[in-house]
């Protein structure tokens, strides 16, 4: 903007005329704004920029639009494999990211919760958090909002395991709670979160208003980590988390109460399909939509080591009874699933080629988004 001003001054000083009487000059310095809150069918696509991860991007996209210019509505930065959260209640976006004082070389690391205004995509505020957040391939549940979005927890790994508790109303860090031997933060009850533990159990940590630990509960080991591990990347529908397992089962866990409650396990596959090696897989293999549908990314010929492969089919299940209600042959190999929010949720499939394919809930392929991206792995609904 400053460049434009300087240019204008120089132009005036030079005595040149813009023939202002022939047309009305366009105003300089205009910056677009967005409807706020953003329309609920919009999505935020996280492009990790894996080969240069200091330059991660969060694209705000309208997946209903046909053209790239209609699709891409704005962008947020997302440094060093950031996490992203939406608070519909507060109408704020949060980017949990890391900065290094010497860039690619490293130097002092600063971890930040950057708070964005959806109307302007400008930074409202930032909260400095301890520089120890879990660094690795992103998991939606390495961060979480609790208690009607009053609190945020950020999972840490140094490799000691803990969670930083942030008060979003007061915009400050309240403290850090130990979560020894367990990982992630699946929101549980009013002000708690549950974590999967290395022994195959689950730990629920309840917080007090001051962010300290108010109580804990443990589920005895139920997860066969070696022979049929639960993915740490579940589908969530109305507070029930559906964890697929490596060999094709689903372990539902109800997080609506004050402690995690284990549901009855069921199988994604028939005996015949299992024999053919049909298994879930991918960076994010399972998602649920607002209409009670579970989508599972599936591949055939599965075996030890194929759990991150993704798949060429999406199987749709009724979460209420575990019945398969549909099957989608994907337009291209998929590696991660997401869904949009709103009245007509759409399935977003991150492709093996770096694109996002959009499908209706019935499996109809609507379009491939035209936004140019390098590693668009996770998509977030905005509500």
């Amino acid at each position, binding site marked *: 903007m400053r460049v434009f001003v300087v240019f204008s001054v120089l132009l005036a000083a030079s005595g040149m005329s813009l023939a202002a009487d022939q047309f009305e000059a366009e105003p300089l310095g205009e910056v677009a704004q967005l409807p706020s809150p953003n329309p609920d069918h919009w999505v935020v696509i996280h492009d990790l920029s894996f080969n240069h991860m200091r330059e991660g991007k969060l694209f705000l996209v309208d997946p209903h639009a046909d053209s790239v210019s209609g699709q891409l509505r704005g962008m947020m930065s997302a440094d060093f494999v950031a996490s992203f959260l939406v608070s519909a209640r507060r109408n704020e976006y949060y980017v949990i990211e890391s900065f*290094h004082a010497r860039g690619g070389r490293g130097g002092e*690391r600063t971890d930040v919760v950057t708070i964005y205004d959806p109307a302007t995509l400008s930074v409202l505020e930032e909260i400095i958090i301890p520089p120890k957040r879990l660094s690795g391939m992103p998991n939606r549940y390495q961060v979480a909002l609790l208690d009607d979005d009053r609190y945020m927890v950020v999972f840490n*790994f140094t490799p000691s395991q803990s969670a930083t508790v942030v008060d979003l109303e007061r915009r400050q860090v309240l403290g850090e709670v130990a979560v020894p*031997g367990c990982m992630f933060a699946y929101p549980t009850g009013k002000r708690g979160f549950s974590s999967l533990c290395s022994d195959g159990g689950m730990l629920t940590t309840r917080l007090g208003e001051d962010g300290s630990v108010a109580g804990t509960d443990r589920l005895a080991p139920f997860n066969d980590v070696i022979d049929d591990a639960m993915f740490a990347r579940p589908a969530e529908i109305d507070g029930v988390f559906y964890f697929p397992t490596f060999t094709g089962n689903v372990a539902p866990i109800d997080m609506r109460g004050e402690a995690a409650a284990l549901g009855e396990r069921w199988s994604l596959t028939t005996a015949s399909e299992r024999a053919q090696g049909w298994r879930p897989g991918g960076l994010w293999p399972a998602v649920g939509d607002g209409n009670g549908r579970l989508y599972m990314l599936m591949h055939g*010929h599965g075996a030890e080591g194929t759990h991150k492969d*993704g798949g060429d089919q999406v199987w749709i299940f009724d979460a209420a009874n575990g019945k398969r209600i549909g099957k989608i042959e994907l337009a291209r190999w998929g590696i991660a699933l997401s869904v949009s929010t709103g009245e007509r949720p759409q399935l977003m499939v991150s492709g093996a080629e770096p694109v996002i394919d959009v499908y209706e809930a019935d499996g109809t392929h609507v379009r491939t988004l035209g936004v140019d991206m390098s590693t668009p792995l996770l998509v977030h609904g905005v509500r």
Partner: protein
Amino acid sequence: MNWLDKLSEKSTRGLAQQTSRRGWLAGIGTVLAGAASVPLLPMARASSGGQPKLEDVADTGDPLSCDYWRHCSIDGFLCGCCGGSHNTCPPGTEMSPITWVGTCRNPVDGKNYVISYNDCCGKTPCGQCFCNTNQGDRPMYRPDKNNDINWCLGTESTVYHCSTSVLIGLAVE
């Protein structure tokens, strides 16, 4: 070729076994204060002595290829393509002192060896020879078995650059 391209290529070949994806690493031990029911994680150190060296082990394959047997559970840019080698960090980087360990079968002698997948740190990601094979990989809640974690921990810089596959021992059955 990035991991997405590699995945696409493999899928068209019918997929199944080793796939490739992303890039950083895992492995390691942690102080699990107060976790009575939680097993302590194995600790691997690249500097541990008295272990077999490559020259002592019958070997085959190309260490710059994702199919090389030692890379059976790697997740990252192969350091051999970045100025280092399969067991050496590139110049000017620092090897992570902690990481996770995998077990890979040597096709020549049929024995299983313990591989320490140490990351090299302190420069921006190398971006060459991405390789992700997941034999024995388990989700992040088992950090000692997970290759999704950025193991540039305990290093001067936490910026991930590339990954090694250091032979540290013969696996005990």
